[in-house]
């Protein structure tokens, strides 16, 4: 059971690391929110599942399972709420090659 817990928690640490790397390195807000909404959720769920495997059948395991359920629902919902707020308040999405017209000013990218 401890082996299973170590495997699950190592997987969780990997996904959390990938999510943190995405938050650190991606070029604009929307791609960072994409990294948080998927990789970070997966990492947190795997981590708590590893703790459940280490704990065994117990009342505490039920509460840990509630935490897993809550992370699965709330973390993408929070990322989505943040992304919608950013889009409505006018944060411009990142384009690969921003096109320039003759005056040299950046053209407004279409969302």
């Amino acid at each position, binding site marked *: 059971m*401890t082996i299973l*817990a*170590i495997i699950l*928690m190592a997987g*969780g*640490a990997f996904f*959390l*690391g990938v*999510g*943190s*790397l995405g*938050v*650190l390195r991606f070029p604009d*807000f929307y791609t*960072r*929110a994409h990294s*948080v909404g998927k990789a*970070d959720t997966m990492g*947190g769920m795997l*981590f*708590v599942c590893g*703790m459940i495997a*280490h*704990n065994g059948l117990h*009342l*505490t395991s039920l*509460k*840990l399972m*509630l*935490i897993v359920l*809550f*992370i699965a629902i*709330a*973390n993408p*919902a*929070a*990322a989505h*709420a*943040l992304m*919608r*707020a*950013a889009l*409505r*308040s*006018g*944060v*411009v999405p990142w384009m690969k090659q921003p096109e320039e017209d003759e005056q040299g000013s950046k053209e407004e990218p279409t969302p």
Partner: protein
Amino acid sequence: MNPLFVTFAVIVTLLMLLSLYRTVRGPTVFDRMLGAGVISTKGLILLCLIGFAYDRIDMFVDLALTYALLNFIGTVVLAKYFEHRTEQEAGEGDPR
């Protein structure tokens, strides 16, 4: 102390430091809120790991559950607040 959980707690703390850079340096206010959300998700996991390391997980799991609820509510409320605030200041460039 179980050395397994202490090792994972150190790893999660280092990842929190990695996310702290985005929270401090983020160009927009939404980047900062995103970094704070990542840090509090990792803090939730760190709370559970500390509970296992001290063999008091039956007490720490309630704290972790409460922390998860407060984190979610705080993020959603702040997102709503900054959405309306930046609509009022429309036309003054990117929100910082």
